[in-house]
C-alpha cells in the first residue's frame, strides 16, 4: 500500500502539497491526498503480482539494455508475487516512486467525487492550485487526463524523459536508492 503521508514526499513537493491544501482550505474546497510515495520495491511487487515470469524477465532485460540495471535488480530482487493486475508501471516508471508526485481527490459533501463531471468546478479549482504552485497537473494532459495526479516534473514516464544517469541521480538525491 502506497503512503499518503506528505512526509514521504521530497521537501520541495511536500511544501507545494501543503500550500495546495492550505489554499484549498481557504477557498472552501475539501481535498484528500490519498497517495504520495510508492517505493521502488513496492512498485516492483505490484508490477510482478499479475505477470508471468516471461514478462518480468523481458522487462528486466529491457531495463538492463537501456542502462537501468539498478531498476532491473530491484525488480528481480523482490521475488515472486501474486495478486490482481493493478498497475501498468514498472519500478521507476511512475513519479510516485521518486516522491515527486501525489494523487488527490476532491470531496463534495464529505464524499470523494471521483467523476470529473460530478464536481467540475472543484476539480478545476484543484488543478488551478496545482498549476499555481508550479507542479504539472495530469488533468491538463491531452491524451489521458488523470485528474487526481500532480507531479513536479513534466512527462508521464520518467524513464522516457531522462537518461539512466539522471534518473539515478534523482533517486539518489531523493534518498530512495
Amino acid at each position, binding site marked *: 500500500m502506497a503512503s499518503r503521508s506528505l512526509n514521504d514526499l521530497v521537501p520541495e513537493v511536500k511544501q507545494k502539497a501543503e500550500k495546495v491544501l492550505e489554499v484549498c482550505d481557504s477557498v472552501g474546497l475539501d481535498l484528500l491526498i490519498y497517495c504520495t510515495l510508492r517505493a521502488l520495491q513496492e512498485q516492483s511487487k505490484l508490477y510482478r503480482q499479475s505477470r508471468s515470469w516471461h514478462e518480468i524477465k523481458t522487462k528486466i532485460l529491457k531495463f538492463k539494455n537501456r542502462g537501468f540495471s539498478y531498476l532491473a535488480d530491484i525488480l528481480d530482487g523482490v521475488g515472486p508475487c501474486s495478486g490482481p493486475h493493478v498497475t501498468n508501471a514498472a519500478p521507476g516508471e511512475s513519479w510516485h516512486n521518486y516522491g515527486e508526485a501525489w494523487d488527490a481527490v476532491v470531496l463534495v*459533501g464529505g464524499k470523494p467525487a471521483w467523476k470529473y463531471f460530478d464536481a467540475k468546478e472543484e476539480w478545476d479549482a484543484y488543478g488551478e492550485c496545482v498549476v499555481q504552485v508550479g507542479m504539472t497537473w495530469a488533468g491538463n494532459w491531452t491524451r489521458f487526463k488523470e485528474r487526481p495526479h500532480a507531479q513536479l516534473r513534466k512527462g508521464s514516464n520518467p524513464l522516457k524523459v531522462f537518461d539512466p544517469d539522471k534518473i539515478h541521480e534523482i533517486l539518489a538525491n531523493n534518498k530512495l536508492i
Partner: protein
Amino acid sequence: MLPILAALPAIFTAVSKVSDLFHKGKKVVEKITGKPSEASNPDELKEEVELLTPEQQAQWAQSMQQKIDLYKEENERLDIEIGRITPELQSKLTPEAANKIAIMRQTTRPWAVRMMVHYVLFPFYLVLFDAVQLAVIHWFGISEARVFKTFNYVFGALTLNDIDKSVLEKVSSIFTEPQNLTLAAQMYMHSIGWVISVIISYMGLREIGKAKGTSGDEFPAYKKGPSGVTGIIQGGLGLVNKVRAAFKTK
C-alpha cells in the same frame, strides 16, 4: 513481555503492507538502538528487529502496536467521515444538494406525529386486543375474576352482551353511544380532536415547506451561480477565481 513478542508476526505483516508504517518502524529502531536503520524494505527491517535483544524487540513491538492501532483508527475515522453528512459538511453542500436533503427531511414525519397517527387508530387496536383477552379469559373460565372485570371496565371495548355485534359496529358505537363508553374510551374521545388538529396542522405546514423549498437560503461555502447558458459557459470559474485570488494575496 511474551504476549507482545507474540504480536510481532502480525506487526511485520502490517509493516510490509503499509509503507507509512515501514518508515515508522525504521524510526522506532533508531530510537531504541540509537543508530539509524539501514533497512530498505520490510524484510530487511524484520531482520534488523530480529537481531535486537528480546527487551528491545518487546519495546519495538509495543511502540509499533500503538502506531498500527493509531493508523487503523485514522483510517476508520476517515471512512466514517467520508460516509457521514455532519452539519459542518452540510454547510459545504451545493444549494441543489442541500435542497434535496431538505425535501427528504420534510417528507419524513417526526416520531411524535407518527405516534399520533397510531393514536387515531387506537379503537381498532383496542377492539383486537380486547377480543384476544376476552377469548383467553373465557377459555380458562375466569371471566368472573375481579381483576379482569376491573380491567374490562377501564379498557374494554367489547362486552359479553354485545358479542354478536360486528367489529365495525362495536367501533362505531364508540362514537354513536358515548353514554356506554368505558373510562378509556371517554378519555380518548376527549383527546382525539386535539390529536387530529396537530396531524392536519403538521401536514399542512409540511406541504407549504415543500412548495417553498429552500431556494431563498444562502450557503456559506457556495453562492448560487448563474443559471442556464450563462451557467454552462461560466461554470467553474467562481472557485477557480477564488484560488487565483488566494495565490495573488499570499
